């Protein structure tokens, strides 16, 4: 199961890979022009500006990653944990799980299933009521909708669920 640390490591890998690709493309572009006969001072200045812009952006991105690291490692405070209104399973005593990879709001922002929990995940015999819980820290405000699967031996179904992130 992904944790904030594994997510962090993965995003560092993604970022450095992305930046390396952009530097490679930029360097290749400049190099190809420098080798051409007619490469003039104003073009060199222009390429230098582009290099500076990319360097600035790289600095921003790496700083951003550092910020994210700090926030993940050092500041697990003020989590925005939200609970839904109660829902009813059509199948008493069912096992419950988020259907699909996320809940989604109207604008396409998502709450990944990894930060969404069904409480309780296993209904007791005869019980039908459950809630959706999400750690929506850093997520946009909105009302996220999705489905929960309900499974009992011999039957299964779906329930539409929604949760408001203030």
């Amino acid at each position: 199961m992904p944790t904030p640390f594994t997510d962090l490591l993965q995003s560092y890998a993604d970022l450095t890979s992305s930046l390396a690709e952009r530097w490679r493309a930029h360097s290749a572009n400049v190099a190809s022009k420098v080798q051409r006969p007619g490469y003039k001072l104003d073009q060199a200045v222009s390429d230098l500006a582009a290099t500076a812009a990319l360097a600035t952006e790289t600095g921003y991105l790496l700083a951003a990653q550092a910020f994210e690291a700090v926030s993940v490692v050092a500041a697990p405070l003020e989590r925005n944990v939200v609970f839904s209104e109660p829902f009813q399973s059509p199948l008493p005593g069912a096992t419950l799980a988020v259907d699909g990879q996320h809940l989604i709001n109207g604008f396409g922002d998502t709450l990944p299933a990894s930060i969404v929990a069904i409480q309780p995940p296993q209904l007791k015999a005869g019980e039908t009521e459950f809630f959706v819980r999400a750690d929506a820290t850093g997520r946009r405000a909105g009302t996220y909708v999705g489905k929960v699967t309900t499974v009992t031996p011999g039957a299964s179904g779906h329930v539409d669920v929604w949760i408001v992130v203030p």
Partner: protein
Amino acid sequence: MGEIRDLVGIFGAIDRAAAADPNVRQAVGRIIPLYRRSDVRWFDDFVAWTKELRTEQSDTPPFPESLDVALNGLAGTPTKGRMMARRMFAIAAALQAFPDVADSGGQWKDSAARALAPGLVEQSEDRGRAVLGILGDEDLLPKEDTPEARDTWWDKVLQKASSEGHIENPELTIGPRPCAGRVSGADCGLTATIESGFTTSSVKFDRACSFLHPTNWPACSNGFWCEMDDCGEVRPGVHHFHEVVSTDCKNSALAWTISAELDFKFTQLPDLAIAEYQLHEGHPKPGDAVLVDEGSLVVHKLGGGESRVITTKRVRFNYPFSVEALALIMCALGYASLVEDLVFTCAALKRKKGVEFPGTEPTRIVPPVKHPADELGDRLKACVDHYAETARAASEKTAAGTYTADALAQDVAQMWVRAARELSDFVQLGARNAQAAGARAPRRRPAPRR
């Protein structure tokens, strides 16, 4: 003058009194608990900001300068529905801030009774005096510092006012306790998050939903929403609206008036209607009055003819208000509790038809993604523009000798908050970029054979 302008005047007088006297702060905190839990004050800053926002120069104060002036303004202003609830709530808080209103029978009491009268049966000043007594009744006031105790107080006030014949059907027309939303902070305490909800049987689900569409709002908000213009569909199902709100739409040039560009998306599931909004793409821009404005309005059909209504709003203005100050400003304006107006003023009281709710089933279509490099460039530019604007404003204030150490600290804090937020967003952009790169590219179809 505008009813909301006068209500802001009452809340402003309360704020100044609470700021000046800790005992008043404690007393007002029985009704508005933020005063008890913090040293918040907001009104003087709000007046200063309103003067900055004005499009016409004037020496006229933007809000009534005293409680008496505000109450006298309301005395001649008809009211009903949710606006009457706000009027009663503001006067209840004033009774705590200015206890002589209730006890001495002086000028304040007469003004308050006249201010209540327009929303009561027969519009009677005597009934106004009686309701004033109910609002200040020590036996009814909350004994504990809990939302439940304050809700019980409000319910008892309405029951007594109804049983004595001052208000008809308060459960249908007045609704729940105003300013009852839960408040929290984000962005290092510069963005306020306000969430409120209530259950009602005042209107049927379909009728309540029919007023969610923003084009209804100017007619349903008693003058706060001056404009809500549909600028068209900007992507499938998403409409861009130009919003103008004011404490006095008829005199907007001299009132507190702001505009915002908002995108709306409407979603419908069985027994559920959702209107969501957020700032239009590209906003906030330098000079925008609203830096954060997003949330949702939800109507959920329950059994037995009841509906659950939930409102959330995240907001930050281009002025360094604290979360507590923002929450109290939202309370005074009614900006974060629109659905209460829609339900109790428009859907329940007016015979007017709403607009068919345009919601669709939720789709899994992600909004069109701008190329990350373009988006990054836009964000960086907006960030730099924001800093430049802050520096310019600071420079002007320094030249004028009005730039204080507090203002410097606020500016620096805002810049860092913005930097932190943007940087955090850049990380997400990077992740999106990687995700996009990892996605399977569409296969090119083979050319038709000739």
